[in-house]
């Protein structure tokens, strides 16, 4: 089985998020980066499990600059066979999806995996767009995925239950929590990753259709207010007028 896993680099969840003074740019100063957990813990690990069960190869793809190589190497250290980085600084999900689709089209993968979303921009768009560009079926938010022959069965967590989906290969899937368990790379894997191919390719020309204009931080959390038992009227007023919960 030939498997492609789309991996993205995101800020570590403990990073303090800031923007440039005009709000137009993310301020990367002092930010520590990780591989997007949905890509790493679920998409990549399930792809590796399927490879271990059925044979085949796992290829990683990332659309980004050289600074992403460390995240890609981590994927190779966890067990992917090779990687491709499309060398550019993308500004939108559509651009990323176009680049992935153009590469995937030539390679005829059986399954294209991505995480259900990245934990920074949370747009959940790339998987669906790749499927559309490739004219392939798309299974989103899959928390389980099994393959038998040329057919896959996926579980999707939906409101109040689970939806089971059957789909023929090839297809695109976005991975949600539950699809696999995180694997920590070991030292032998890290050393082997150095020798695995990481090809850098040029992007195909594609005009961005949208551009981020401004970012703002959410309003700061208010401090907790404590009331004495004889201030119930004031508490009710604030719950009604400010918190708007009653």
């Amino acid at each position, binding site marked *: 089985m030939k498997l492609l896993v789309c991996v993205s680099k995101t800020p570590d969840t403990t990073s303090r998020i800031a923007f440039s003074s005009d709000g137009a740019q993310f301020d990367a100063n002092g930010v520590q980066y990780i591989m997007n957990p949905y890509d790493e813990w679920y998409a990549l690990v399930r792809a590796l499990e399927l490879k271990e069960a059925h044979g085949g190869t796992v290829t990683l793809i990332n659309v980004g600059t050289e600074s992403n*190589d460390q995240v890609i190497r981590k994927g190779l250290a966890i067990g992917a066979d090779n990687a491709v980085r499309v060398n550019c600084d993308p500004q939108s999900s559509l651009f990323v999806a176009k680049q992935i689709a153009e590469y995937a089209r030539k390679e005829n993968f059986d399954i294209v995996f991505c995480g259900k979303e990245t934990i920074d921009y949370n747009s959940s768009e790339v998987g669906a767009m790749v499927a559309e560009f490739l004219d392939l079926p798309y299974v989103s938010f899959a928390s389980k995925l099994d393959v038998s022959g040329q057919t896959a069965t996926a579980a999707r967590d939906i409101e109040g239950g689970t939806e089971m989906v059957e789909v023929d290969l090839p297809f695109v899937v976005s991975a949600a929590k539950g699809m696999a368990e995180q694997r920590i790379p*070991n030292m032998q894997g*890290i050393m082997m990753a150095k020798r695995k191919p990481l090809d850098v390719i040029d992007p195909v020309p594609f005009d961005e259709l949208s551009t981020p204009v401004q970012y703002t931080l959410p309003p700061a959390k208010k401090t907790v207010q404590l009331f004495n038992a004889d201030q119930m009227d004031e508490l009710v007023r604030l719950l009604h007028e400010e918190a708007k919960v009653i």
Partner: protein
Amino acid sequence: MYTNNNGTGDHTIVKRAKEDRYQHHDYYNIDELLTEEHLLARDAVRTWVKQEVTPIIEEYADKAQCPTHLFKGLADIGAFGPSIPAEYGGGGMDEMAYGVIMQELERGDSGIRSMASVQGSLVMYPIYRFGSEEQRRKYLPKLGNGEFIGCFGLTEPDYGSNPTDMITNVKDDGDAYILNGAKMWITNSPVADIAVVWARDEQGIIRGMVVERDMKGFSTPEIKGKWSLRASITGELVFEDVRVPKANVLPNVQGMKGPLSCLNKARYGIAWGAIGAALDCYDSALRYSLERIQFGRPIGQFQLQQKKLAEMITEITKAQLLIWRLGSLANVGKATPAQISMAKRNNVMMALEIAREARQMHGGMGITNEYPVFRHMMNLETVLTYEGTHDIHLLITGMDITGLNAFK
């Protein structure tokens, strides 16, 4: 939930739900001096520590139990002998990678780092460096994958800083040696499958040998009552007419050069590890200072607290630069024993002082196991003493710069 039958009986350890919010601190962008492989190794061990060590370590330390199930996890991530060649079960990495692994393990707990550094530096390293090819093939892969746990016997009840005068000895008996004596303060000994033991032969020469658990006359009583490294198991090695086949003697070393070269490896790892403990204390103190409100403001806004924090990160940064340079020298085989002594001494005392200051910054909470600092502080008292005491390392520097020996 884990059960652990080691030591005093059955104990059930409940994993803590409290999140480990540790974030690395790199004030001088020293990460830029590390390779991709070093950063990946560090990240992998940090993730493992957050998943496997932090949630259980306080309770194991509280109960003075060794989390022996972590030996397998340490092996799986490749923390045993990372700089031993891969064909012998190591990681094939450089000395800098070994250092960052030790730093991250000690960020979790000095006892966990001790489990790994004994296995790698004091057991796998001498077998690799001084052992026969047959000994390498017999022991190293099993030590690397955690099937065997090893320990290292040099210190004796009456010979600590002065191991050269050891009384543990062997007598020739045909195809074997008869080993008698006792070793003390031996990390991992009660759970060890093999021990690398240093003993004097009939010509007065120090020889290294591998003693196996099932050899008759060999026992490993546990040392109880430690207020430090409580999650690490420590014991004695007692040899009563133990018949050790000559095939178990390390053929390629004689004299104190053998054990001292192992200690150099381990001390180098400790100099890295201490930074991990210091970083964890600083990280906890910094976060606490921003969250703890007194007099209507975070305590981090007060000058006395800022002084503590600023001095901590300054000392950590100096130690990081020192160890980076030492690691660079070690990578090309040029780190001298005296240089390693300086780094071990400086970095461990630095960490201990930061632990004490961080303890104060946490106020009353600092004496509880809600925060890691008191545990680190207690652990570091051991680290200050083992693998060459703080004072002995000073004398090594003194001897190195004057050429005069103050030991005798």
